[in-house]
């Protein structure tokens, strides 16, 4: 937007006022901006009430919460809830499942968007490229509920698409060995295309002259990807990897819960589902909060570790 298009013209009085604006006291500047503070008031209040007060309420993880007494007056029980969680019969199973689903998920779903965007970026037919992008983004806009419905129907032993193709009658969702694959593969199907956006945007910044020069030197497409595109993507890819590694305990609740059956629990039982079941279904508020807090604590430790690694790596990689 160029300046000349503005419908507002600066009058003589205005420019006099402009020169007066600078060098005012803090109090005057705050008064000047009262309307902006008024705008901020609503989001600030909502954030205090629904974000900061719950943060303060985390202390019920160390108390025996009683709704009549509230967050701060319920009796103190120390680490009882945590100890109870560590002694829970499914504790190790949940830890293992949470970490494994995340780890394998990261292993598969991290490289695929990078590879896809490297390929899409080199396609020279713009209309085709656009169609590919549009279709690849589509699953991201579909509700997890519909995705899980599709998974259930496709994997159904009677007339499900996969069984029709394989000519079998296997009920995949009752097989605990299949759960992680189902979870991760459907995740890739839904979000790998969406994950390309950030990489495609990065690749769009590559100087076209660089490709021209490479072409003059006789570089093939593969060599251009290897020597121009990959180095360009590397910083962004490392950043994404670090962020993802920091969230390794964050297995999404929704899909696991919807796809869980009694028979695949050996691999589908994860902490997030436990937090929901104990807290919302069984109303064990303090216990559930303690389990959630334990999960968050591991995440924070992981985040600090990967941040350390990142700052070390950045000395080598980025400078």
């Amino acid at each position, binding site marked *: 937007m160029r300046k000349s298009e503005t419908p507002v013209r600066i009058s003589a009085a205005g420019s006099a006022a402009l020169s007066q604006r600078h060098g005012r006291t803090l109090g005057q500047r705050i008064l000047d901006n009262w309307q902006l503070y008024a705008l901020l008031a609503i989001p600030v209040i909502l954030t205090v009430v629904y974000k900061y007060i719950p943060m303060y309420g985390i202390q019920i993880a160390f108390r025996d919460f009683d709704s009549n007494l509230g967050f701060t007056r319920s009796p103190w029980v120390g680490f009882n809830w945590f100890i109870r969680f560590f002694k829970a019969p499914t504790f190790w199973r949940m830890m293992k499942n949470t970490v494994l689903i995340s780890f394998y998920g990261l292993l598969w779903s991290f490289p695929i968007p990078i590879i896809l965007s490297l390929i899409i970026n080199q396609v020279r037919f713009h209309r085709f490229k656009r169609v590919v992008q549009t279709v690849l983004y589509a699953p991201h806009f579909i*509700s997890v509920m519909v995705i899980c419905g*599709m998974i259930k129907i496709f994997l159904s032993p009677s007339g499900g698409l996969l069984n029709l193709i394989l000519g079998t009658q296997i009920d995949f969702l009752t097989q605990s060995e299949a759960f992680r694959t189902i979870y991760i593969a459907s995740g890739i199907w839904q979000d790998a295309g969406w994950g390309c956006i950030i990489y495609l945007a990065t690749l769009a910044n590559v100087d076209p002259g660089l490709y021209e020069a490479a072409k003059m030197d006789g570089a093939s497409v593969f060599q251009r990807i290897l020597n121009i595109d990959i180095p360009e993507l590397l910083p962004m890819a490392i950043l994404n990897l670090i962020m993802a590694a920091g969230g390794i305990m964050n297995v999404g609740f929704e899909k696991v819960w919807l796809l869980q059956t009694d028979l695949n629990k050996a691999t589908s039982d994860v902490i997030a589902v436990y937090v929901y079941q104990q*807290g919302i279904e069984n109303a064990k508020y303090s216990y559930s909060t303690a389990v959630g807090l334990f999960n968050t604590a591991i995440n924070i430790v992981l985040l600090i570790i990967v941040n350390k690694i990142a700052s070390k790596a950045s000395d080598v990689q980025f400078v």
Partner: protein
Amino acid sequence: MASASAVKKKSAGLSDRTSDIILVAICTVVLLIVAYPLYYVLVASFSDPYDVYAGKTFLLPSGFTFDGYKAVFADPKIVSGFLNSVKYTVIGTIFSVVMLYITAYPLAQKDLPGRKWISLFFVITMYFGGGLIPTYLVVKATGLTGSMWSLFLPGGVGVGNMIIVRNYFQNSIPHDLVEASEIDGCSKFRTFLSVVIPLSMPILAVQAVFAMVAYWNDWFTAMIYLGGKGEPLPLVLRGILIKSSAATEQASMISGGYAELNKQTELIKFCSMIVAAVPMLIAYPYVQKYFEKGFMAGAVKG
């Protein structure tokens, strides 16, 4: 870029023409993998469920029928779920976008006293939160449970998106323009309404679509806060797609009247998924060209 010098001269690699073909071929395969499951559901929604079960609908509908859609739109639960979802999506989208704008705009003003602290106040909530139960207890204590506002208010400001919008205000709306309009007598609020908002339409469109998709697809918040009242479409679908599947599987073994009932249930599954997915699939291509821009605006430090 030092890497360019690493490119070898006179490569014996593939010609551009051959590699074009390979690239297009790979893209086409990926395209089919992504599109086919959706296409299959669409085809099945128009087909006789027996033919779907028999594997006759891989490419085209078999026993073409509109019965499924007729049943879907005659089902009071699905219809009310659909209408609830429309209501929540419209109100929620307006709420979210207004919240984003009234937060991002003041914080984009470099001369606003306390700007850094207020920004930090919001950004902290991106990394730390109260978790499921403390948040639930606060929502309950503030009397929102059972009301549609429980879907909007606790979400507050989407901080990540707010930063994207703030950066857009900072980098793409000329500060002179804002200053000029203020000097000519517009109040801060007036400037925001008549100068800033019209200039930020691309980012507004993207944010509106993101919010729309989030509210249309949300069911978890509705499940824990609404207490069964005014269920949105995805929660109604849960009853149809997830809970019922074990029962229908058994029913499919039984013939006769049961099978007839079951036939319609099976059709409804496909049709209701299409009804739930299609509105958003129609919406996003309109703002697709702004996606990359939106992401890059977020990547720039502000």
